[in-house]
């Protein structure tokens, strides 16, 4: 393992210190418990957006803290979900009174920890909503699994909901929009190499020179299947089909009912993409794949979407939700409407995503 780190125990802490000193105008970092928050938080009358998860996916989530996106992010150890005390403390710190929206990637660890935090925060009288992101089309069902994992759509929902919060959406409106973006999203990822978790010191999995893993999550967890290495056109075609040929996806998720002060089940449905739809096409590097290769993937993807009558309304291409230095890529397609596009185009000023300011 060769990495630009000091002792493995201090990796996350030191990286956060670097981030805090690099972006002091945009964000601050609290330690014990650890969370990253907007330098100007709490922002009066604005719903506070908080996300979090294991470290190692940078710029997500800490790099998306700032104007027009997240109010706080809670980083766990590398690839380990953060704990409720972080999420609770972050919620207390950035809540302006307009309430807190937790954006939670659907990994059991993240979900359970955020649930505990939501209960704690709601117990203090803070208005809380919690929305699950579960866009990974590699997972077929939610009956025999913990449901689809939260992957690329996380970046898109954080951007769009962040802009809506900035524009004055209230807590329930923010939650509704966040849920809508999630149920309009599907993703699929591939890995060409494994990454190395610093504390482990060796590759998470072994991938032969001639194979790639199709349908990974964001930690290099096993995907749908391992396949012989193929061309970018072939891989992109497989990825696009996994998204475009995916049927209706229905599942039950748990959301916090503010009025009743308890968790309630909610049925969510993702409709398939259809000819005539417009999408945000997000082509993401898992970290080690250079942006040049993403362009080759985008080239093929745009041809395939064109052939299906699907219009790319916006795109985002680069390393935004990564797995350390893993080589690989993911594609996320988000069906858009005017509301989504408006908030996508709105200004954002974070270390990881910036435009309009």
């Amino acid at each position, binding site marked *: 393992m060769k990495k630009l780190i000091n002792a493995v125990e201090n990796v996350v802490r030191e990286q956060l210190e670097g981030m805090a000193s690099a972006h002091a105008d945009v964000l601050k970092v609290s330690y014990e418990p650890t969370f990253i928050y907007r330098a100007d938080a709490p922002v009066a009358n604005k719903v506070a957006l908080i996300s979090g998860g294991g470290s190692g996916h940078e710029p997500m989530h800490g790099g998306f803290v700032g104007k027009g996106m997240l109010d706080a992010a809670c980083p766990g150890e590398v690839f*380990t979900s953060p704990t*409720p005390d972080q999420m609770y403390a972050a919620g207390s710190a950035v809540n302006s009174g307009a309430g807190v929206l937790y954006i939670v990637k659907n990994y059991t660890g993240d979900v359970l920890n955020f649930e505990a935090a939501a209960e704690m925060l709601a117990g203090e009288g803070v208005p809380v909503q919690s929305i699950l992101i579960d866009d990974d089309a590699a997972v077929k069902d939610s009956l*025999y*699994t*913990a449901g689809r994992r939260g992957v690329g759509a996380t970046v898109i929902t954080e951007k769009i909901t962040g802009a809506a919060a900035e524009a004055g959406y209230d807590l329930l409106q923010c939650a509704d929009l966040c849920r809508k973006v999630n149920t309009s999203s599907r993703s699929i990822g591939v890995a060409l190499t494994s990454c190395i978790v610093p504390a482990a010191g060796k590759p998470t999995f072994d991938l032969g020179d001639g194979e790639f893993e199709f349908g990974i*999550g964001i930690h290099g*967890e096993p995907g749908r299947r391992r396949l012989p290495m193929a061309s970018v056109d072939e891989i992109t075609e497989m990825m696009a089909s996994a998204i475009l040929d995916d049927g209706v996806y229905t599942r039950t998720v748990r959301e916090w009912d503010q009025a009743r002060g308890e968790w309630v089940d909610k049925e969510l449905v993702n409709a398939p993409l259809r000819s005539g739809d417009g999408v945000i096409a997000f082509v993401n590097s898992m970290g080690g794949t250079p942006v040049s290769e993403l362009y080759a993937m985008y080239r093929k993807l745009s041809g395939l979407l064109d052939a299906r009558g699907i219009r790319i309304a916006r795109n985002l291409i680069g390393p935004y939700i990564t797995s350390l230095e893993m080589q690989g890529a993911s594609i996320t397609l988000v069906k858009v409407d005017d509301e989504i596009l408006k908030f996508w185009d709105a200004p954002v000023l974070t270390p990881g995503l910036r435009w309009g300011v």
Partner: protein
Amino acid sequence: MVTKEQIVRWLERLASVLAENKAYLTDLDSAIGDADHGTNMARGFAKVAEKLVSVADTDIGNILKATGMTLMSSVGGASGPLYGTFFMRGGAVTASREELSVEDLGEMLHAGMQGIQQRGRAIAEDKTMIDAWIPALAAYDTARIAGEDTAAALRRAVAGAEAGMKATIPLQARKGRASYLGERSIGHQDPGATSTYLMLKALLDTLESS
């Protein structure tokens, strides 16, 4: 009867048991998870051992709650909030107690397990820690109703947990990270069921060694 001192010694023993079994649990987790269950549990209980110094003089309810809170904020992953909830719920039903009868201990364990189920929503045969808790508590209850004492009932519980833990091997996971493996999760013992077994075993060993 379990005294407050025994509860403290149990938690201390558990901290060393989990430190010793760190690699074992992580190996189990690397087969069907993300290779951190041992690290998570060892880290959490090391914190609990530190915390015990300042709460050992209070009551059982408080000690268990402090344990739960400490686990909550130091374990992370799926197991953190689950075991955290277990101890917090266990603490809630043993508030201000200095010792626990065989019934009290049963109540504590049931409250804890219920917390795990509410939080994690796993049912029997999902291949989770629940598959160790269910047979353990069933065995405990049977012994208790038959009039056996705490240590005897716990001995049954540990046997039940061990059987449940082993019975996870042929199961296909339907909850947690392992569920994404589908059929590939078959043939491996669940790490969380294993840490549950170790937890009950440490309690039994504490009672038997005093």
